[in-house]
């Protein structure tokens, strides 16, 4: 088991290194001069030279690349080209908001998606099945940012139950949770649709297995067969899917944070793109990709806990 964990962790580290390399060299092919972008068209030659020296842009490309790798190894993400603030601090401040949103989305996805998936599989061919499948189809088709806008118009503009701008003010738990409801629902709708569809198809396959037939033949209560015997096996692909859709959740979080004017990694990245803050864009992309790789690794390692048949060897 330990050697499997080490091998998977090393593979994940290699992917992160490849991501860093691609992002670094991609950022260097930009036709614009980052110094001119940061200081403006009217900056003097001396100011531009001083900026390049301070940002390390006057060094050879390989030196800059190795410098970035060394900084990342120390956990240093560099400084913003616009505000000169440490990027690590900015990301650390934004991350809890995105994490809270991701957890809210996950909660909505699991709480709505799994029961719908189980119900539609058990009641296959009925109106319940049709409604559940329609829910999945709509969830997979309606872009989360549009769902967010509809929720915002209905619940904030028309009904006034929620604020239009979702940036926290007081920071109390009650306020934080209140402002998390609509963003989580908008992105969670898509997640629930994915999970419902996957749960339904896996559940249908599982219900055709011999051991389920045996369980029914033994006279077990249907609820016990569905929830104790079948659902446990259904959970494995569902957990995998949740891991695989981390990327989609993060992608969706960018838009959701913009729609609801919420702070977070997505809003930070879009702000950096708008200001052409290349250092922040570079670090933001690396952090986004790093989170996806880490979650995939954790999902991979969790198989053994969920399914005793899976042995990491």
């Amino acid at each position: 088991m330990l050697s499997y964990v080490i091998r998977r962790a090393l593979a994940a580290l290699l992917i992160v290194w490849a991501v860093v390399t691609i992002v670094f060299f991609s950022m260097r092919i930009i036709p614009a001069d980052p110094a001119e972008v940061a200081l403006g068209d009217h900056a003097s030659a001396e100011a531009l030279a001083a900026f390049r020296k301070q940002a390390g842009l006057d060094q050879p490309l390989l030196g800059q690349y190795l410098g970035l790798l060394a900084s990342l190894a120390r956990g240093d993400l560099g400084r913003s080209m616009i505000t000169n603030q440490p990027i690590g601090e900015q990301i650390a401040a934004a991350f809890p908001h995105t994490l809270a949103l991701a957890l809210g989305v996950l909660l909505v996805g699991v709480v709505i998606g799994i029961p719908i998936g189980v119900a539609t599989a058990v009641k296959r061919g009925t109106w319940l099945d049709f409604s559940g499948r329609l829910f999945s189809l709509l969830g997979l088709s309606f872009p989360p940012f549009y769902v967010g806008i509809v929720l915002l118009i209905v619940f904030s503009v028309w009904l006034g139950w929620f604020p239009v701008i979702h940036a926290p003010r007081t920071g109390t738990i009650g306020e934080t949770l209140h402002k998390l409801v609509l963003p989580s629902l908008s992105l969670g709708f898509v997640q629930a649709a994915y999970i419902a569809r996957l749960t339904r198809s896996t559940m249908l396959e599982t219900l055709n297995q011999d051991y389920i037939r045996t369980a029914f033949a033994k006279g077990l209560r249907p609820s016990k067969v569905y929830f104790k015997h079948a659902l446990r096996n259904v959970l494995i692909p569902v957990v995998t899917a949740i891991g695989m859709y981390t990327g989609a959740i993060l992608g969706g979080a960018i838009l959701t944070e913009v729609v609801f004017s919420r702070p977070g990694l997505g809003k930070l990245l879009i702000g950096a793109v708008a200001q052409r803050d290349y250092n922040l864009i570079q670090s933001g992309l690396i952090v986004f990709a790093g989170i996806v790789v880490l979650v995939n690794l954790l999902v991979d390692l969790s198989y053994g806990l969920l399914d005793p048949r899976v042995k990491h060897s």
Partner: protein
Amino acid sequence: MALTLRGKRRARVWISVLFRDVGTKMGAGILVVVALAAVLAPWVASHDPTAQSILHSFRSPSAAHWFGTDEYGRDLFSRVVWGARPALTVGVLSVLVSMIVGMPLGMLAGLKGGRVDLAVSALVDVMMSFPSLLLALMIVTLVGSGLHILVLAIGIAHVPLFIRLARSSTMQLRELDYVAASRTFGGRDSWIIVQHILPNIIGPLIVMATLGIAGAIRDEAALSFLGLGIQPPQPSWGNIIRDGVSAIMAAPWMALISGFALALTVLAFNMIGDSVRDVLDPRDIAAASTEKDERR
């Protein structure tokens, strides 16, 4: 010749089974309307989509302006109709880019195995660690916006999906007797791919392409919504939604209507994709074929 006839008959059976499905009929109906709106936009649109009239800004839907007007008094119905053009263009062309790049790489990796497979799989792993929207966003940030850049950026962002599909299908097919036999008789990789692999993965490919168009349309709208896609005053559903969010208190219908056009189009492609997937199940084809024979 016999094979061609059999192929044609199979295609006819597929299409007849496909259009028996309610989802296909509804999806195709919506797409016909959207495609006609895109193609006939100069005639369907009631106003010039970029013509401003500040005196008429934020007008609610009325007989003169069916979907109302925006901040600059531009007719929203005309902008939504013209917005169908970039959506469908980017949707279809970017999937073509993904297929042209992803399919050969995936088939080669699946057929060759070994180092080629390892290299391609590593590429997929690295690309998949970026959410597709983020990858497209990175490319657009680096290279700039514009229709052709959007096609390339979204196309490249969706390449890993096509590589994975082609690779896994090819790995299954390469173990089959007739592929092994073709190799024994000296068949080259290119011959095996064109003659044996490609015709057998065309079904899943159509499903992936249909669902891929839906995803690409969504990504185009998302990038335009973020201000990185189609630039105003040219209309795109994404930038109309963006304008609508800015004016959410004054004119909530702007974001609602343009977003609904987007959602409906994506829904149509997803409905067709789902139906094609169901129909391509060999059991359905066999059943339909038998049913058709019985009718004769």
